[in-house]
């Protein structure tokens, strides 16, 4: 047996068993709900993999996921659990939409740059709240990010139902359509847009910085042993705040990219849980850049499957959460060596 095959045999086998177990358990749930699991799986596969349009939609869905995964991965590097990418996503969409709707007369590249920056500022500010509270040693960031997730959609709702509501569309609470200079360009014939390339760009920067720069080393030191890092003169508190803000900025970029590329206007239903999916991706990839790329594709497939199941099986979209939970359960149930913690 060639060497590379031997090296891949056990992980591949384990992955196969994992997938079979997850599909089996989820199929059991579908069966209990009175659905036909075989048909559900066949439909999902046919709609998302065999169909070229479905396949390109998977890549489209990777755009927000790459960015929200990075929004979790960067704080993870300094030992923080950011479960708030969902809220940071919404706030980025909000501030980015403000720049898209209220600035006129700029050429498209400048306008796009402005709304991207506005979206990143929105997410960064929302990430700065838990970051600051944690850096001051006041409140744990996990609980604050979770609570802020419930506030963010209410803020978006306030603007979308209130001051920003488009008067001509009385039925639907949403803002007017963005001007054409504020729409993300996409590759002809597909919905593959600028956001995906921005996601790849930031993933590459992340990969470079964490492995090849002093910053990456300092972050690892803070995440590994904050007390030792402090004695070495590394500004631990500053890194905590920066990591949360940079993470928030990337989630905010995901938000404005989704709005400016896909929807063209701000409304309530812009995220089917991209922030939480980013958390799942990071946990599966363990903040590894290549892992994030692969797992983003996998989770994009699951998210798309959720829409397929919603249409063909009349399941609520939230059912994908069951699938994501089963994946996490299976990964967590895999025993680790002593001393290592997931």
């Amino acid at each position, binding site marked *: 047996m060639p060497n590379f095959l031997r090296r891949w045999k056990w992980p591949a086998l384990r992955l196969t068993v994992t997938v079979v177990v997850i599909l089996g358990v989820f199929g059991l*749930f579908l069966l209990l*709900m009175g659905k036909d699991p075989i048909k559900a799986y066949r439909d999902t596969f046919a709609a998302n993999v065999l169909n070229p349009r479905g396949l390109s939609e998977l890549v489209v869905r990777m755009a927000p996921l790459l960015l929200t995964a990075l929004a979790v991965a960067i704080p993870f590097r300094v030992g923080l*659990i950011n*479960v708030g990418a969902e809220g940071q996503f919404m706030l980025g969409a909000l501030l980015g939409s403000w720049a898209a709707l209220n600035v006129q007369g700029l050429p498209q590249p400048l306008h796009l740059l402005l709304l991207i920056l506005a979206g990143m500022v929105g997410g960064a500010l929302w990430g700065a709240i838990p970051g600051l*509270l944690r850096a001051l*040693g*006041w*409140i744990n960031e*996990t*609980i*604050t990010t*979770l*609570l*802020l*997730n*419930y*506030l963010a959609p*209410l*803020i978006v*709702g*306030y603007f979308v*139902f*209130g001051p920003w509501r488009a008067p001509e569309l009385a039925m639907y609470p949403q803002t007017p359509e963005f001007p054409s200079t504020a729409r993300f360009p996409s590759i002809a014939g597909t919905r593959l847009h600028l956001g995906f390339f921005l996601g790849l760009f930031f993933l590459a920067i992340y990969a470079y910085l964490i492995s090849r720069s002093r910053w990456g080393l300092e972050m690892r030191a803070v995440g590994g042993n904050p007390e030792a890092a402090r004695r070495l003169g590394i500004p631990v508190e500053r890194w905590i705040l920066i990591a949360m803000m940079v993470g928030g900025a990337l989630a905010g970029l995901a938000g404005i990219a989704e709005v400016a590329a896909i929807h063209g206007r701000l409304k309530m239903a812009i995220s089917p849980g991209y922030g*939480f999916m980013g*958390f*799942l991706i990071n*946990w599966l990839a363990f903040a590894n850049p290549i892992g994030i790329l692969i797992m983003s594709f996998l989770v994009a497939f699951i998210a798309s499957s959720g829409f397929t199941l919603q249409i063909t099986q009349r*399941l*609520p*979209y*939230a*059912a*994908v*959460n*069951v*699938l*994501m*939970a*089963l994946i*996490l*359960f299976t990964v*967590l*149930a*895999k*025993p*680790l060596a*002593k*001393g290592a*913690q*997931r």
Partner: protein
Amino acid sequence: MSWFLSWLSGAILYAAPILYPTLGEVVEQRTGMVNLGLEGLMLLGASISFAVSFITKNPWLGILAAIGTGLVANLVYAWLVVHRNASQLAAGLALMFFGIGMSALVGKPYVGQMAAYLPKYPLLGSQSLIFRYDLLVFLAFFLAPVVWFFLFRTRWGLKLRAVGESPAIAYAAGVSPGLVRYLAAAFAGICAALGGAHLSIGITGTWSEGMTAGRGFIAIALVIFSRWNPLRAIVGALVFGGAVVLQLQLQAQGIGISAFLMDMIPYVLTVLVLLVWGRGVRHVAPASLGRVYFGTE
């Protein structure tokens, strides 16, 4: 005055569904386990109790179903944490995902339906229409002092707290940390599911997706506020219940503030409560909180 009385009456009613998960989490954290899955457990309890009570027309069977579901679901969490050495945060969030998804699946056919309510009884035999509660409200306020007595005045409570401070020393003293954590998780699972069930078949009589609206996370904040003391948890739950009712009353009076801004009140209040009372609690918190216990050799 009557406005105040109806506010107080409502505050007590809305305190119950948050008091249950808070009590469960207090016990669980006293053994050293942080469970972020309360939100999922509450949603499971709310949806399953609603479905069962809708089908059987008997809310008590719904309560039983919620108890069973919460118990089993949280034992899975405990298994991951105790036997598989999984990160408590990740295992809790997995439970959250599961509860959000599963409750949506279970509750789908019942959106917009009305189920059998729990019967209501007047407090202190009063004749008025307010201060009438179902048994779960009475049980919640009865349970808090019982849990306090158990934790701080019994030998078993001492063992339980010992596990939370140092599993290794508790083990040396003849206590099995794993067993204690399983039992605490079982209790917490039941409590969280009861809280959810009270929301769906005790208060609203309806089911809607995500109806617990973050109460599971607010409960975790209240545990920090209560400094892991069940009696202080009553205060926290009443403050939160009061905020929810105030927001409902203001909306009912139709004052000109956006409903979205009013809905923020409970979350903003929770963050503020954490800011004021959540700082510097590390010396009060159970020492082994959040750590994986790999066993003693």
